[in-house]
C-alpha cells in the first residue's frame, strides 16, 4: 500500500471527497481526528515510533478518498430528507455565507492592507500620489485573481454539498456574476492608467472566477497541496510587489518616463461635464487631444470650455504658479485639495483670461509624467471666494478649431460651485 502521507494531507483528501454541508463535514473530520489520536496512541504504546504509528493508523483507515465517498453515500438518505424539508436551502444559504464572506472579507482586507503598504512606500520614497492609486489598484487586481478562484469555488462547493444540483449551478452563476462585477470595477479603474496590465489582469480574473465555479461543479478539479498553495501564495505576493514597484519605479528613478516633456503642449480650454470628467482642448503640435488625453473621434469637432453665470460679479481666474493636480474627482463632495505652492506639478498656467460670459486660458505643460492620471482643476475667485468651475450642461459641439472656439462668445450655462 502506498504511503498515506501526512495526517493533514490525509484529512484534506477525506474532506475533498466528503462534499457534505460544513457542519457535518466538520463533525466527520473531528471524529476521524479523534480516532487517529486513539489509534496512534495505542500503536505508540506497542513500541512504534510516532511517525510509524501515524502511518499505520492512517493505513488502517484506508484510502481517504474512498472513505470520504463512502461516508458521503451513507449520508444520502439524510440529505434527501433534509432537502425535502428545505434543509438544503438553509444549508445552501449558510454555506454560501460561510464560503463567500470569508473570501470576500479576506480579499477586501488584503487589498486595503496592500494599498496601505503602497502608501507607506510612497510616503517614504516621496513618490507621486497618482502612481499610488494605480499601484493600489494593481495590487488589488492581482490579489483578486487568486481570491476570485477561491471565492467562486467556496460558494459553489457550499451549495453543491446539498442534494439539489440546480442550486450548485445557480451558485456558479452568481459567483461568476459577482466576479464579473468585481472585474468590471477594476477594468474601469485601471484602464485609465495602464491598459495593457489592466487587460491582462482582467482576463486572469475572469478566467479565475470561471475556473473556480466550474471546478466546484466537478467538471474539472484543481486540488492544490499545502506546499503548492504556499508556492502560489508566494508567487502572488512577489507578483504584487513587482507590479507595485513596476508602477512606482519610473517615478522613483525618473527613468523611462513614458511622457517626456513636451514644451509645445498647451491647454486651449477645458470643461468638466459631470458624466465625462474633465475634457479640454490641447494643441500638442501633433493634433488635438482632450484633457484625458484621448483624441476626439472627429478631429474637426471640439467641445467648448465651460462658462460661468453672468450673475457672478467680479469673476477672476486665478493664476497659479502650478496647478494642483488632484487624484480624485473635482466634483462636489470630493476633496480636491488646495493649490500647493510648493508642488512643482507638471501643469503651469501661462495665461488665463475671464470675459463677461466665458473663461479661457492656456496652460503650458512642461512635464506631463502621469498626466493621464491627473484632473485639471479650474478655479477662480468670485467676489473674493474661490470656486471650482464645473458644468452640468449638455456638451455643446463646436464646429471649428479650438482656437476659433476660444475666440467665439458662448451662451452662458448653469454651473455648479464648490466653496
Amino acid at each position: 500500500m502506498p504511503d498515506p502521507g501526512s495526517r493533514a494531507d490525509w484529512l484534506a483528501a477525506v474532506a475533498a471527497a466528503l462534499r457534505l454541508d460544513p457542519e457535518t463535514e466538520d463533525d466527520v473530520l473531528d471524529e476521524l481526528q479523534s480516532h487517529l489520536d486513539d489509534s496512534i496512541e495505542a500503536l505508540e504504546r506497542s513500541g512504534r515510533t510516532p511517525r510509524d504509528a501515524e502511518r499505520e493508523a492512517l493505513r488502517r483507515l484506508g484510502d481517504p478518498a474512498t472513505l470520504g465517498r463512502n461516508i458521503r453515500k451513507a449520508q444520502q438518505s439524510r440529505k434527501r430528507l433534509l432537502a425535502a424539508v428545505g434543509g438544503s436551502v438553509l444549508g445552501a444559504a449558510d454555506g454560501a455565507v460561510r464560503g463567500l464572506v470569508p473570501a470576500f472579507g479576506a480579499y477586501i482586507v488584503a487589498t486595503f492592507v496592500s494599498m496601505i503598504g503602497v502608501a507607506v512606500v510612497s510616503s517614504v520614497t516621496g513618490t507621486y500620489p497618482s502612481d499610488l492609486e494605480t499601484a493600489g489598484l494593481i495590487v488589488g487586481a492581482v490579489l483578486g485573481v487568486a481570491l476570485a478562484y477561491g471565492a467562486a469555488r467556496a460558494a459553489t462547493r457550499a451549495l453543491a454539498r446539498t442534494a439539489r444540483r440546480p442550486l450548485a449551478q445557480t451558485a456558479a452563476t452568481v459567483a461568476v456574476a459577482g466576479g464579473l462585477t468585481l472585474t468590471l470595477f477594476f477594468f474601469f479603474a485601471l484602464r485609465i492608467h495602464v491598459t495593457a496590465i489592466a487587460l491582462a489582469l482582467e482576463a486572469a480574473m475572469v478566467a479565475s472566477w470561471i475556473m473556480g465555479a466550474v471546478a466546484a461543479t466537478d467538471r474539472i478539479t484543481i486540488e492544490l497541496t499545502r506546499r503548492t498553495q504556499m508556492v502560489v501564495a508566494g508567487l502572488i505576493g512577489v507578483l504584487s510587489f513587482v507590479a507595485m514597484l513596476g508602477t512606482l519605479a519610473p517615478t522613483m528613478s525618473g527613468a523611462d518616463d513614458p511622457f517626456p516633456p513636451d514644451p509645445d503642449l498647451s491647454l486651449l480650454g477645458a470643461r468638466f461635464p459631470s458624466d465625462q470628467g474633465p475634457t479640454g482642448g490641447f494643441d500638442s503640435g501633433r493634433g488635438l487631444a482632450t484633457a484625458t488625453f484621448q483624441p476626439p473621434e472627429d478631429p474637426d469637432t471640439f467641445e467648448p470650455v465651460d462658462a460661468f453665470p453672468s450673475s457672478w460679479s467680479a469673476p477672476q481666474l486665478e493664476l497659479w504658479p502650478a496647478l494642483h493636480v488632484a487624484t480624485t474627482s473635482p466634483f462636489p463632495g470630493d476633496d480636491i485639495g488646495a493649490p500647493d505652492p510648493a508642488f512643482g506639478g507638471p501643469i503651469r498656467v501661462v495665461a488665463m483670461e475671464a470675459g463677461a460670459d466665458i473663461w479661457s486660458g492656456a496652460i503650458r505643460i512642461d512635464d506631463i509624467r502621469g498626466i493621464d492620471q491627473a484632473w485639471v482643476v479650474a478655479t477662480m475667485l468670485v467676489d473674493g471666494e474661490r470656486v471650482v468651475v464645473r458644468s452640468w450642461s449638455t456638451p455643446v459641439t463646436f464646429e471649428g478649431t479650438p482656437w476659433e472656439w476660444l475666440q467665439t462668445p458662448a451662451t452662458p450655462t448653469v454651473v455648479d460651485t464648490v466653496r
Partner: protein
Amino acid sequence: MPSRDSLRTQLLKGTTAMLVLEVLADGEAYGYEIVQEIAGRSDGSFVVSEGSLYPALHKLEADGAVVASWRESDRGPRRRYYRITPKGQGLLAESREQWAAVVATVGQVSRRPADA
C-alpha cells in the same frame, strides 16, 4: 483459493453493521472503542476494517438505528458516542435471525452425507 484471512474478511463483509449494533447493544461507545471491542470479543479473529466502520456508523445513524452525541474526553479531543435506538434494537434482532438462518443453511449445505 483465498487465504484464511481473506476468507474471513469476505465473510465479515456485510456483517459490520450487525457487529456494531451488537457492541452498542451493551452500551454506547465511540468508533475506536467499537473496533477494539469487536476485536476483543472475537479474540482478535474479527478485525473490522476501520475504513468501513465509519461509513457503516453513519449509515446506521442516517437510518435511525443509532444516535450520536459529542462528549468531551479527559484525554484529548471530543469523541462521538453512538447509542442504539429502539429501531436499531429491532434491526439487530432481525439481523441475528438472518444470521442464524444463514449459519443453519450453510451448515446444511456443508454437512456430509455421513454426518446425516
